[in-house]
C-alpha cells in the first residue's frame, strides 16, 4: 500500500510536469487552421504582440528548465533516499558556499530576463508618430468609440453586445462568436499606427484585444494612452478585463482591421450617415414611424434592464410606470439625464435625438401604456437646450 501510494505520487507529480511540457509543445501560438490557440498566448498581428509572445515563451522555457532541475533532485531524493530502503540520513545542514551560489545564479538569470523585458516595455511605451487617434470610453456595459479629427466632425458610435438574450439563456443555439460579437465594430486601417485614448464614463473598465497586444485600464476622469499597429487585415475580438459590475462579462470588443481604401470608404459612409441623422433631426415623423424606430432603439438600449415587454428587471417596469404614463418633461429628463445613484444611465449622449424621440414615444405607447402623445426630434433638441 505504502509503496503503491509513493509510486503513484511520483507518477502524479511527473504528470504535472509533463502536462506543462506538452502544452509548450502544442503551444506555439497559431493552431494549424489559423484560428487562435486555445492553450497559449496569441502573438497576434502586431510587432509588439510578437515581442511579448517571444518574451513570454523565453521566460516560460527558463522556468521549465529550472523546474525540471529542481523537481529532478527532489524526486531523486523521494525515490532513493527513503527510509524504507534502510538509508541512514546524512546530518549536514548548512553550506555558505551553496547558499551564495543559489542566490547569485538566479540573480544573474533575472538580469538576463530583465534586458529583453525592458526593451519590450520601452517599445510599448513609444507613443510617438501615431497617425490617428481614437477616443475609447468604457460605459456600463458598452464601449464608445470616437475618431478624433482636426475639423471636429468626429465619427462617434457605441458598440454593444450583439449576442441575443435567447442564446445567453440557452433557449437558442449559441453561434460561433457567442459573447464576442457587437452591433458595430471598431474599424481601423491596416499598417497604420493608431493611438487609443482610453477613459471611462462611470467605473473602471479595461480595453483588451489580445491579438492587437493592447490592454489598458479605462479610468473615469483620467485619459490613458496606448497604441497598436496591425499588420494583417482581419477581425479581432476581445473583452473588458476589469470587473465593472453586473454585465462585465457582456461588453466585448471587436476590431475590424481593413485596407486603407476600405477604411476611407467606411469613414465616408459614416460621415454620410451622420449627415443623414442631422437631416432626420429636422423632420417630423408620424406615430407609426416613431413607433417602428422606437421599438428598435428600445431593443438595443432599454431591453436588457427593463424587459422585452416592459415588465422590468434590473430597472423599473415601463408598462404602467408613473414615468411613462406621467408628465412628458419628466420622462424626457430621465431618458436624457438618467437617475443619479442608480443603474439608469444618462442616455442623452448615447443615442441621438431622433432615437430619443422615437424611444420615448414608443415607451409611452407600447406595453399597454397608450398615452397617445408623440415626441419629435426637435422636442428632444429643445429640451436639451433647456
Amino acid at each position, binding site marked *: 500500500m505504502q509503496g503503491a501510494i509513493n509510486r*503513484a505520487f511520483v507518477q*502524479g*507529480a511527473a504528470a*504535472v510536469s509533463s502536462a506543462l511540457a506538452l*502544452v509548450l509543445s502544442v503551444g506555439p501560438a497559431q493552431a494549424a487552421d489559423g484560428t*487562435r490557440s*486555445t*492553450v*497559449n*498566448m496569441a502573438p497576434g498581428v502586431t510587432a509588439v504582440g510578437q515581442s511579448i509572445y517571444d*518574451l513570454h515563451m523565453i*521566460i516560460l522555457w527558463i*522556468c521549465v528548465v*529550472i523546474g525540471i532541475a*529542481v*523537481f529532478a533532485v*527532489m524526486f531523486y*531524493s*523521494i525515490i532513493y*533516499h*527513503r527510509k524504507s530502503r534502510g*538509508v541512514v*540520513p546524512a*546530518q549536514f*545542514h*548548512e553550506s555558505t558556499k551553496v*547558499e551564495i551560489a*543559489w*542566490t547569485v545564479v*538566479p540573480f544573474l538569470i533575472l538580469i538576463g*530576463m530583465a534586458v529583453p*523585458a525592458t526593451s519590450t*516595455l520601452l517599445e*510599448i*511605451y513609444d507613443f510617438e508618430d501615431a497617425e490617428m487617434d481614437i477616443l475609447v470610453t468604457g460605459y*456600463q456595459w458598452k464601449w464608445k468609440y470616437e475618431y478624433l479629427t482636426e475639423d471636429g466632425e468626429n465619427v462617434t458610435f457605441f458598440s454593444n453586445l450583439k449576442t441575443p438574450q435567447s*442564446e445567453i439563456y*440557452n433557449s437558442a443555439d*449559441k453561434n460561433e462568436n*457567442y*459573447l464576442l460579437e457587437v452591433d458595430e465594430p471598431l474599424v481601423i486601417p491596416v499598417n497604420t499606427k493608431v493611438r487609443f485614448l482610453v477613459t471611462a464614463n*462611470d467605473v473602471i473598465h*479595461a480595453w*483588451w484585444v*489580445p491579438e492587437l*497586444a493592447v*490592454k489598458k485600464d479605462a*479610468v473615469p*476622469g*483620467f485619459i490613458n*494612452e496606448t497604441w497598436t499597429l496591425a499588420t494583417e487585415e482581419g477581425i479581432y475580438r*476581445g473583452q473588458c*478585463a*476589469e*470587473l465593472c*459590475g*453586473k454585465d*462585465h*462579462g*457582456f461588453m466585448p470588443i471587436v476590431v475590424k482591421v481593413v485596407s486603407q481604401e476600405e477604411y476611407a470608404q467606411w469613414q465616408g459612409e459614416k460621415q454620410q450617415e451622420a449627415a443623414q441623422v442631422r437631416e432626420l433631426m429636422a423632420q417630423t415623423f408620424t406615430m407609426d414611424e416613431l413607433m417602428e424606430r422606437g421599438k428598435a432603439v428600445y431593443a438595443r438600449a432599454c431591453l436588457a434592464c427593463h424587459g422585452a415587454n416592459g415588465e422590468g428587471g434590473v430597472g423599473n417596469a415601463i408598462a404602467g410606470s408613473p414615468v411613462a404614463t406621467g408628465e412628458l418633461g419628466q420622462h424626457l429628463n430621465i431618458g436624457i439625464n438618467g437617475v443619479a445613484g442608480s443603474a439608469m444611465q444618462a442616455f442623452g449622449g448615447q443615442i441621438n435625438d431622433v432615437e430619443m424621440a422615437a424611444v420615448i414615444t414608443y415607451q409611452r405607447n407600447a406595453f399597454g401604456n397608450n398615452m397617445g402623445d408623440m415626441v419629435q426630434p426637435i422636442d428632444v433638441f429643445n429640451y436639451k437646450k433647456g
Partner: protein
Amino acid sequence: MAHGPAKGISRWLFTTNHKDIGTMYLWFSFAMFILGGAFAMIIRAELFQPGMQLVEPAFFNQMTTLHGLVMVFGAIMPSFVGLANWLIPMMIGAPDMALPRMNNWSFWILPPAFLMLASTLFMEGGAPAFGWTFYAPLSTTYAAPSVTFFIFAIHILGLSSIMGSINIIATVMNMRAPGMSYMKMPLFVWTWLITAFLLVAVMPVLAGAVTMMLMDIHFGTSFFSAAGGGDPVLFQHIFWFFGHPEVYIIILPAFGVVSQIIPAFSRKPLFGYDSMVYATAAIAFLSFIVWAHHMYTVGMPVAGELFFMYATMLIAVPTGVKVFNWVSTMWRGALSFETPMLFCIGFLVLFTIGGFTGLMLSIAPADFQYHDSYFVVAHFHYVMVAGAVFSMSAAVYYWLPKWCGKMYNETMGKTHFWISFVGFNITFFPQHFVGLAGMPRRIPDYALQFADFNMMSSIGAFIYGGSQILFLYNVVATIVAGKPVSDDKVWDGAEGLEWTVATPAPYHTFEVPPTIDPAHAHS
C-alpha cells in the same frame, strides 16, 4: 496550582488559554473554509457550461467577491493565527501568550464580523459584488447599500488581526525560555514573528482605505472620484500597499509549517536555517516595494513600471533560496511519506509552479497580456491553495496527535491528500490555458472556445471540494475515537519543545520554563 478548563460554554466564551483559543480559531477558520468553498462551488457550477444556467450575473459577482473575502480573511488568516496560538508558546517554552485576555477578544470579535458580512447576502441590493479587491468607484458610488456593513466588517477583522499580531510579537520577544535566542527559535516562530510585523504595518492601511470609502459614500468626500478632485487609482495604490504584504502574510506562516515538517520526515535537520531566516526577512522587506505590479495596466509612467518590475523580479531570489533549502533538506535524508509529508511535498511542487507563474507575471510587458485573465486566477490559487491550504492541512495532520492525544487514520489522510492533489490540478492547471487564450477573470459566462477547459476546471473543483469532507470526517473521527498515542514525541523525526510535553498536551504547559541545551543548534 494546576487546574483544568472551566465547564460548559463559559470555558470557550471566557477562556484565556492559548490552546482553547487556538482550537476555536482553527474550527472557526474551517467553518469559513467550508462557507467560502460553497461559494466557489456555485461559481464553478455556473461556469460548468457556456450560457447562464443557475444564477444571475449580479449574484455571480457577489459569489466571487464573498469567496475571496471569506477565504482570505475568514479561512486562511485565522487558521494560521490558530496554529500560532497553539504552537508558539509550546515551541518557545512559554506558559501562554503574553496578552491572554486580548487573545480572547481578538478571537471573539471575528464571528460577529463574519456574521455581518454574510448577512449582506440577504440585504436589499445584495452582498458586495465588486471583487475582493473592491476597486473604487465600483465599491463606492456604484455599490449596493450593503457596502457599509462590509466596511464595518473589514474594520473589525483588521482590529482582530492587529491585536493577534501584537500578542504574537509580545510573546515571542518576551516569553522565550531562558537560553532560547532568536536564532534558536523554530522557523515557524520566526516566520510568524515577521508576519506579525507585516500585519501591524499594513492592516491600518487597509482600515484607512475602507474609511476613505466610507467618507466618499456617506460624507461627500471625493478621495476616489476624479469629479471632486480625487483619483480612483489612488484607491488601488492604497489597497495594494496593504494587499501585497497581505499575500506574504498568508504564505510566510505556511513556509514556517513546511520548514518544521520536511525535516521531521526527512530525519535530517533543516538545511540552511540562517539563510531561511534571512530569506523570510528579505521577502517581507520586498513585499513593501512591489505593490504596483498589480497595476501594470493602470497607466503608470514607464519609470514606475520598470521600478516595480525589477523589484518584483527580485522576490524570486529569496523565494528560490527557500525552495532550494527545502529540497536540500530532503537530499540524503531518510524519507518517509506520512500524510503531513505528502502535503508538504505537494506544497513544494505546486508552490514552485505558482512561483514560476509569479515570475512570469512580474514581467511588465508580458503582464499586459496576462493581467486580469484566468492566468492570474491560476497563479494565485497555486500559491494560495497549494501554498497556504496544503500546508495548513499538513499542519493539522502533523500536530493533531499532540493536540488531542489520538492518531488519525493514515490511509484516509493519504486518500485525502491524493484526491486533493489531483482535484486541485484538474481545477487550476487548465485555467493557465484559458487565461493565456484570452479569458478574462470574474465573468459569469464565456465564449465557446473556453468551454472544454472550464468544464474540466469545474469537475476538478467538485473533486477538490468533496475531498475536504473526508478531511473533516477524519479529524472528527480522530478526536472522538482515534487510536490513543502515548509517546510524547509522536513522530520519530520530530524536533522541538512542543514534542517534549505530554501527549495529549496538558491544559497548561511550561509553567516552569524548560532548559534549552546550549549545544543544540535550533529545532
